[in-house]
């Protein structure tokens, strides 16, 4: 039971974007992809989402190649949050969230209820009736997070009733980019909660301190490969980060902090 990449090779045109990557996200796990721009983080995420066809190797969902899943089946087991969405029609916020229930056929009352619960989970229940086009950028991103949460909803997310199926996966591409502090925290808290409720999270993050704080496991990508993988203490080392980012860094470990701090020198 996992979403995994096996000896994955990705090409874009003649360029090799990823060269032999192995990665698995299991139920209950929050995995952060970190690394410099152009290292292939977003490409890896897109491949795990099924958007990019591997040049070699494969993507497996519960041991079965992702390409063998029907679009509907796949959509009920994994949701993808892009960096930004382009929606220019004034839907109400709750309607946008309810779009997450598209893979479940004709909409019913339970779908509306799940949309509400997802919106409450990201802290925007009060905006349900507002036109989406009038929201701020940060609010929009949280609405889309609620949308993808409602797509792979599991009742354990808010502790209310409902039956529980096999674990689902949430793929987030820099969900905190261009967000203010409060919004960043709301987004990552919700993602963490999804993992704690038994789902798997794969999240591209630029901020190393966020990755260290929220993720169970960090994967450091550089030069088309994963060069380090493990807990924040294992991955956030001066040697690995200097190799990846090409600048000298200092690692600050303080007894009152649960994770190391990375300070560029």
């Amino acid at each position: 039971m996992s979403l995994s990449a096996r000896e994955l090779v990705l090409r874009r045109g003649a360029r090799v974007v990823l060269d032999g990557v192995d990665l698995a996200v299991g139920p209950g796990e929050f995995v952060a992809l970190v690394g410099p721009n152009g290292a292939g983080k977003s490409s890896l995420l897109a491949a795990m989402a099924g958007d990019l066809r591997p040049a070699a190797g494969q993507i497996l969902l519960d041991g079965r190649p992702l390409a063998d899943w029907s679009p509907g089946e796949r959509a009920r087991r994994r949701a993808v949050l892009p960096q930004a969405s382009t929606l220019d029609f004034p839907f109400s916020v709750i309607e946008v969230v309810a779009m997450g229930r598209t893979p479940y056929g004709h909409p019913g009352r339970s779908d509306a209820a799940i949309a509400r619960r997802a919106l409450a989970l990201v802290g925007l229940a009060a905006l349900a009736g507002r036109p989406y086009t009038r929201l701020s950028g940060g609010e929009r991103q949280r609405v889309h997070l609620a949308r993808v949460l409602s797509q792979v909803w599991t009742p354990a997310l808010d502790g209310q009733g409902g039956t529980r199926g096999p674990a689902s996966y949430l793929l987030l591409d820099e969900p905190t980019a261009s967000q203010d502090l409060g919004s960043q925290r709301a987004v990552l808290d919700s993602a963490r909660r999804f993992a704690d409720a038994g789902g798997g999270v794969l999240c591209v993050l630029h901020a190393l301190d966020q990755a260290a704080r929220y993720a169970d496991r960090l994967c450091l990508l550089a030069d088309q490969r994963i060069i380090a993988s493990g807990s924040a203490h294992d991955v956030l080392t001066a040697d690995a980060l200097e190799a990846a980012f090409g600048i000298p860094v200092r690692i600050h470990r303080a007894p009152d902090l649960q994770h190391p701090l990375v300070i560029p020198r």
Partner: protein
Amino acid sequence: MNAAALPLPLGRRPSRMGLLAGLSLLAALIALAVGAFPLPPAALISALLEPLGIDLGRHAADQSFVLWHIRLPRVLLAALVGGALGISGALSQGLFRNPLAEPALIGVASGAAIGAASVIVFAGSWLAALPAWAGAAALPVAAFVGGGLCTALVHRLARVDGRTAVDTMLLAGVAINALGFAAIGLLQVIADDEQLRGLTFWLLGSLGGATWSALAVGAPLMLLVLALGPLLARQLDALLLGESEAGHLGVDVQRLERRCVALIALAVGAAVALCGVIGFVGLVVPHIARRLGTVSHRWTLPASALLGAGLLVIADALGRTLTAPAELPVGAITSLAGAPFFLVLLQRRSARR
């Protein structure tokens, strides 16, 4: 925000939809009554009920004839064509994810216009040699085939690496429309006076050709689109998020886009084949529908169909009465009313942002 005010079940507005349907029906009843030969309400109802075996005895034979052979097929055709154009407009705006899109952008209208104009200008002498029914069928068939071919061409031009690129399709549609316009201009130059009159009348759109046999041909096609279009509502809503987002939600985007193009081509092809080019209904009606309800296609698609039907019935009734006994082409009325209305909508829209 109280919970009761939220849409539940999502996006449904049953009462407002019923109101729209009722208003459209009322418009149709009024349209049946007015015209060069007015039918008083009592006579209208009496003549309508006659085939059901209910004899109110309030109408004369000529009134019954006008209703059943002239007025009713015409109002039904207006409703069907208006509904088909309205839903095609909503489908196009969803397909192109652009509220300024209209059905003509897939090339169907200009293709149909070229087909019909060619028949009017070139085929006069051959048609005279054919039996009457075949001569009458040549124009709508040519229009329908022309519309289909042109749509296929635009769709083909927009294919890149086996995928349809919707933005390329939009630009290809603009180019093909310009080409079609030029071709019709050339045909107008070489047409003689009588052909020119036929051409102009057809390009302005008219419901004057409404007969039961025209309905028998066009109605099944347009009803098919009216029945199938709303089934795409949820997927079209998801498509507004973007193609890859819709794909993540389990929507087969390529299949959805092909279905949209096919439905629009069927509806507009049939409408143009029977009535000529009727402008602005497809562009404006979905905007009015959105303002009356929500932007979700679950409302917009059926509401645009009802609204398009009602509005075209009214426009045609105006065309028949304003200058009676002469007739104004219905396409001229829809464009005259639609264009300024659309500009007002645009103004309001930019003011709100």
